[in-house]
């Protein structure tokens, strides 16, 4: 990630004032929301953009010749351009709006995978994958006769790249699919190297950026990816919208995925032809207001600055790791602070994460307890579940203190 020369520092208390969710108490305590990796809270500015769109510029897009339809189309296409800039995609026609990162990955798995994979082929994922970048590949591999292979983790929770050669020996590597930041451990993965490796093997590289795009600059060209999936709801945008970036030369050769209204060029009983990009992949009425809200969220994040956000989260992660490592009986998972995003997964000896999270909730602290949609990783760690605290641009140090205090209470209850 490029570090800007004039690094703007983020004032989380100021940012926080834009988020109405914090104007309430939980169980009589201030809300310490430490579950942003699951979904982020929303700034007023994003909600206002959606309401303004519905109130002044709403109509179905693309086909209407009247003013409201033109405004709505301009708003949707304006949002698409914002996503293009966010990802530094070469061409706006390569940005496809979807519901979420999961759908983006399924689109690639079905549209590319079902038509390009077969026996002898290998789809390579990692032990760190979210189910959304694991199950679609497992499913498509099962349907096509391809095999699934996993890049294992080392003891630090980082990918063990020394295994790549032996993996390549198992078949034709056709797909390498990994996340950029692990939602469980916060590991920042060496995705440029994996992209290069994928291309050396003659495969495509599919990047799950659901957990990185909210927190750092993702440049699809610099990374050398072929497909990149993101979710709006994790980055201050509304639910119901995400985006797939795909290399135009691949997208244009692919069959469509969902079919129906809008994605066609012409429809006849004997033959239907597909529309141009990106429309070929956007069947039916688009998540229009959601795209507009996503665009507003991107504006908001840009105004704060991705470098400032990354630096702030890094500071919080280091602080949290420092304070939490002093808690007796705690196990902290994942890599050292330098190589992790604002995510801390942990367990406390003899106390199930559900119980930890429940007692924390009573102290106003919201963390996630579970497998975080990473059962292969949990199997590797030898646990059913972990606790996870995750941070974002509105997270303040006081929330981490509240977490640490809460953990003391947890230990007292279970003493």
């Amino acid at each position: 990630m490029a570090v800007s020369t004039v690094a703007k520092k983020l004032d989380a208390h100021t940012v926080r004032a834009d988020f109405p969710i914090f104007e309430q108490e939980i169980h009589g305590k201030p809300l310490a929301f430490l579950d942003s990796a699951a979904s982020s809270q929303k700034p007023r500015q994003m909600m206002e953009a959606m309401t303004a769109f519905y109130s002044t510029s709403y109509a179905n897009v693309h086909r209407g010749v009247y003013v409201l339809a033109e405004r709505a189309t301009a708003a949707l296409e304006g949002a698409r351009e914002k996503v293009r800039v966010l990802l530094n995609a070469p061409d706006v026609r390569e940005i496809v709006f979807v519901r979420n990162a999961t759908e983006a990955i399924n689109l690639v798995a079905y549209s590319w995978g079902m038509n390009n994979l077969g026996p002898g082929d290998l789809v390579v994922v990692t032990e760190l994958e979210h189910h959304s970048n694991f199950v679609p590949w497992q499913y498509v591999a099962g349907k096509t006769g391809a095999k699934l292979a996993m890049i294992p983790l080392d003891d630090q929770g980082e990918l063990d790249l020394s295994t790549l050669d032996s993996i390549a020996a198992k078949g034709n590597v056709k797909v390498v699919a990994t996340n950029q930041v692990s939602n469980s451990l916060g590991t920042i993965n060496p995705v440029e190297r994996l992209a290069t490796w994928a291309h050396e093997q003659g495969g495509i590289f599919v990047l799950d950026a659901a957990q990185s795009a909210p927190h750092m600059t993702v440049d699809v060209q610099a990374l050398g990816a072929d497909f990149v999936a993101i979710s709006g709801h994790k980055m201050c945008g509304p639910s119901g919208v995400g985006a797939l970036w795909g290399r135009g030369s691949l997208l244009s050769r692919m069959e469509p995925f969902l079919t129906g209204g809008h994605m066609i060029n012409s429809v006849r009983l004997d033959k239907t032809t597909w529309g141009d990009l990106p429309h070929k992949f956007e069947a039916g009425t688009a998540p229009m207001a959601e795209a507009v809200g996503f665009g507003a969220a991107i504006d908001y994040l840009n105004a704060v600055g991705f470098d400032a956000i990354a630096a702030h989260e890094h500071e919080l992660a280091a602080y949290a790791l420092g304070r939490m490592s002093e808690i007796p009986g705690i196990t902290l998972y994942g890599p050292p602070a330098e190589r992790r995003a604002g995510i801390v997964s942990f367990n406390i000896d003899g106390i199930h994460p559900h119980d930890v999270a429940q007692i924390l909730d009573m102290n106003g602290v919201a963390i996630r307890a579970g497998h975080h949609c990473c059962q292969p990783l949990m199997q590797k760690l030898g646990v059913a579940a972990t606790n996870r605290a995750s941070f974002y641009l509105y997270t303040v140090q006081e929330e981490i203190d509240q977490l640490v205090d809460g953990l003391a209470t947890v230990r007292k209850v279970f003493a």
Partner: protein
Amino acid sequence: MSEFDQMYREVILDHYKNPHGHGVLDPADAQADGQNPLCGDEVSIYVAFGEDGETIDEVKFSGRGCAISQAATSMLMDMVTGKTATEVAVLDKQELLDEIAIPLTPVRLKCALLGLTTLKVALHKAKGTPLPDGLAGFDELELT
């Protein structure tokens, strides 16, 4: 008394730390595995019937889980020993919840009922007794 004192009251923590019927029966007359997809917790239930092939003579559970699920399953072991398969199959979950007697949110309800649901599945497989509510109907198909 604060809310979590209510939730993690003494008897829950006691059952959690010293669960009744924790273990494995091998062979077992009835057996089933259950899991809570929300957190990955797993429980296995083992039943041995008495001479009549109907009355639960011994019942054990193994697996991992939170205090609520472990305590609830532990209490369940006490509740059902000596009952017939048919009696247990129609056991109202409220009876167990009354025993647990703590405020439960929908997510934690799944934890509390995991053992009971799995036990009913075990009895269903062994004796054809009715499935629990949540699994009856079309989801039945997914059981096998």
